[in-house]
């Protein structure tokens, strides 16, 4: 733009685009007089441009007038402590918990080194912990061993946190120059041992090249992995000396309109039948059979034996929980939505041999909760349309049989229930939900986690068929009953547990329900982000609950399940229970978890069993009716 003062004629008038550019420039720059005059002329004659100019200035004023957020009081203390360490540490050693957390190295550590790091870890944790959190007693963590360390250089190739430990072998992912390798350590972590180390080198079992970051999960038998980016999901076998998979070039094979047209997912009939666990009580036999998800022809069951890498869905992004393989490792379930967010999420299923994943829900408001035997637990938000989540939000959960295409609704409002592997118990969340406008997704806002026996629940056959106009319904009816699971977005109580049952979120308040809240946090009723993991026997549940204001760090509690009494006993927090990151799981009687400092631990679960809970040795009855019903709700979980 010229700075010369010239007479302004028609030729010198600004276009709208030029005027807006000058308006932007003028926010924090003094314009040349000629430009200022021309801008003034234009704004006088163009109300639309004047309005936009006003918008620019209003935004500028609001941003410019922002107050500074409060700085954590311990920021200097922790930075000073880190500087102390930086002065004495050798170059290249990561010094802050952020770096360690971000580059959870699973470098090879000898047992001796691991033992030494335990001491270092305890010391540094005491220094870095937030005020008020209890330091870890170094001498009370029996059965715990460091198996990984985050003490790696930030800039070097940094093997990432373990994806899984299967049979004592750890699997993790590392990245260098856009090549992601899934590696396995094959010579350590023998089952049943409390202490072990994980190799940082390992053997490459899968190799993926991608221009965008990937995430991955491992099948329970470690035979394959599901990997995904923000727009593509693929499955690849884990084999020795794998060929590199160019993920960006991998595309799902076209198989018609499987994604666009509701269809019944076809899991091959050869899939093992349901286990013998006591699954929830179904509705009376007189109930009509639930219609399948769609009357249209199902996609052909796999005829080919696809054994190599296969892209199973493209143009979609994973939503909610990570994809999860079934216990036999043959079927993958996940929830995803179109990359362009044109609809909300649905649940998809892929079975070994199939060429692509298929949607099994079609209301664009469903998320995977997990597997229960060969059935899939699904949670659905109502009022969660892609058009902006109008209406009264609620939620409900379903048990879906991917082989039959049938679904049953759990009679109690609950979100993302997690079932124990034996099918006797579950942990679920109930409370208020809210819409996150930035993501366009509904999520838990404030509530609690509850332990319940399946025998106290009933199921009603239902359909997961699409609604007529799922994205246009302005006031969807809450799925949940009037008493539970529904609360208006603007009147969500800060303490859901104290709200009246008629308008409150789901926490069971009365003797109608038998569940009891798990004591997972010092702030009952404020659980909004959690992870539940069960050991294979269903005798322990590890529950991670995010700290307030954090999505990545939380408190880990382990509950012993008194299976005879049908009760989760009071929690027995680990000595390391504070400030645990979100990764945790079980393997061969050991709980594995990672702390914010990047250290990964194996905890012998037997050492955690509270004295007050006898560990049953007899076979657990498969009859749900034999699991006693709890008579009251105790919010404290006591």
């Amino acid at each position: 733009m010229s700075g010369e003062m010239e007479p302004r004629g028609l030729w010198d008038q600004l276009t709208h685009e030029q005027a807006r550019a000058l308006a932007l420039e003028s926010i924090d720059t003094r314009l040349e007089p000629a430009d200022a005059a021309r801008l003034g002329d234009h704004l006088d004659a163009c109300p639309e441009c004047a309005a936009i100019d006003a918008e620019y200035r209003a935004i500028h004023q609001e941003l410019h007038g922002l107050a500074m957020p409060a700085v954590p009081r311990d920021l200097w203390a922790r930075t000073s402590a880190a500087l102390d360490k930086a002065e004495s540490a050798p170059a290249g050693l990561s010094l802050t918990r952020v770096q360690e957390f971000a580059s959870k190295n699973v470098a090879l550590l000898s047992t001796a080194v691991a033992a030494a790091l335990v001491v270092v870890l305890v010391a540094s944790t005491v220094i870095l912990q937030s005020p008020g959190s209890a330091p870890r007693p170094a001498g009370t963590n029996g059965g715990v061993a460091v198996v990984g360390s985050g003490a790696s250089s930030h800039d070097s190739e940094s093997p990432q946190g373990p994806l899984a430990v299967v049979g004592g072998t750890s699997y993790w992912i590392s990245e260098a120059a856009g090549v992601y390798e899934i590696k396995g350590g094959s010579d350590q972590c023998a089952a049943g041992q409390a202490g072990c180390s994980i190799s940082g080198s390992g053997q490459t079992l899968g190799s993926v090249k991608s221009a965008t970051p990937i995430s991955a999960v491992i099948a329970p038998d470690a035979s394959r992995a599901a990997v995904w980016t923000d727009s593509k999901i693929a499955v690849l076998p884990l084999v020795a000396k794998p060929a590199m998979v160019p993920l960006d070039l991998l595309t799902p094979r076209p198989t018609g309109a499987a994604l666009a047209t509701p269809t019944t997912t076809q899991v091959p009939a050869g899939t093992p039948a349901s286990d013998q666990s006591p699954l929830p009580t179904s509705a009376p036999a007189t109930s009509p059979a639930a219609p399948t998800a769609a009357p249209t022809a199902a996609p052909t069951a796999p005829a080919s034996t696809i054994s190599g890498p296969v892209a199973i869905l493209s143009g979609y992004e994973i939503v909610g929980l990570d994809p999860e393989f079934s216990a036999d490792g043959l079927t993958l379930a996940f929830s995803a939505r179109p990359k362009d967010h044109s609809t909300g999420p649905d649940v998809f299923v892929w079975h070994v041999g199939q060429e692509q994943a298929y949607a099994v829900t079609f209301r664009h408001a469903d998320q995977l909760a997990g597997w229960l035997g060969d059935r899939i637990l699904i949670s659905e938000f109502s009022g969660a349309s892609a058009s902006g989540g109008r209406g009264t939000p609620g939620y409900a959960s379903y048990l879906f049989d991917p082989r039959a295409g049938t679904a049953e609704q759990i009679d109690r409002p609950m979100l993302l229930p997690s079932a124990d592997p034996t099918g006797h118990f579950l942990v679920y969340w109930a409370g208020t939900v809210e819409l996150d406008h930035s993501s366009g997704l509904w999520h838990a806002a404030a509530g609690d986690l509850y332990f319940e026996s399946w025998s106290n629940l009933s199921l009603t056959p239902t359909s997961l068929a699409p609604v007529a106009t799922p994205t246009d319904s302005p006031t969807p009816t809450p799925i949940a009953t009037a008493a539970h699971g529904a609360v208006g977005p603007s009147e969500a109580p800060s303490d859901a547990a104290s709200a009246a049952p008629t308008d409150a979120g789901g926490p069971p308040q009365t003797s109608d329900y038998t569940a009891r809240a798990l004591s997972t946090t010092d702030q009952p009723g404020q659980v909004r982000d959690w992870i539940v993991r069960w050991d294979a026997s269903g005798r322990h549940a590890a529950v991670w609950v995010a700290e307030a204001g954090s999505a990545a760090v939380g408190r880990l509690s382990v509950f012993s399940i008194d299976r005879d009494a049908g009760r989760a006993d009071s929690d027995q927090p680990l000595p390391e229970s504070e400030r645990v990151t979100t990764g945790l799981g079980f393997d061969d009687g050991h709980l594995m978890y990672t702390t914010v400092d990047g250290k990964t631990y194996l905890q012998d679960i037997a050492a955690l069993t509270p004295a007050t809970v006898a560990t049953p040795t007899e076979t657990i009855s498969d009859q749900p009716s034999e699991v006693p019903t709890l008579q009251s709700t105790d919010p404290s979980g006591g």
Partner: protein
Amino acid sequence: MTAASEDARDRTFIEELFALHHAEIYAYVFRMVRDADIAADFTQDTFIKAYKAQDSLEDRAKARAWLYQIAHRVVLDEMRRRRIVRFLPWTGESHGAAPSAEHLAMEMRLSAPLARALARIPERQRAALLLAEVNDLTGMELAETLGVSHVAARALLTRARESLRQALADEKRQEKEREDALDALYAAKARGADPARSDDDAGARR
């Protein structure tokens, strides 16, 4: 100068920088990552990196922009790294993790629509806006922080302002639609007709 005295000088310099700039660095990081705990971690990380990289600071008069540059890289690197592997072994995606716009607005002291709009624009544009508008970096400081030319920094800032204006307009429109829908709902209830029980909606759900 002995190594010990050099260390002492270095430490003192970083401590001075901390005293002068930790609040604004924390504010910038917090507004980028929208998580107080992570922001504290990143701020700490910024000063540790600064301590280690003092040799790269040629002119101490430019220490502020240099600090912002480190903080900016820490934020973008960590945000990218956290997306690579989400630290969620097994099936452990955290759900409900994203703080609501209202929560963010309260913590960031922004109006909710503006907080949502800010979250919608690209990271680099958001960084440029926050650095220039909130943290008052000069044009040269902004360019140094972002590692681009002055002209490119101005262009990025211009694009960011326009992106934010459009995103904010969109947010306000959506908010009005929601309010209108709620008004209609309350009006219908006031008339005694519960739309939740209407045939259309019953059919629409289940």
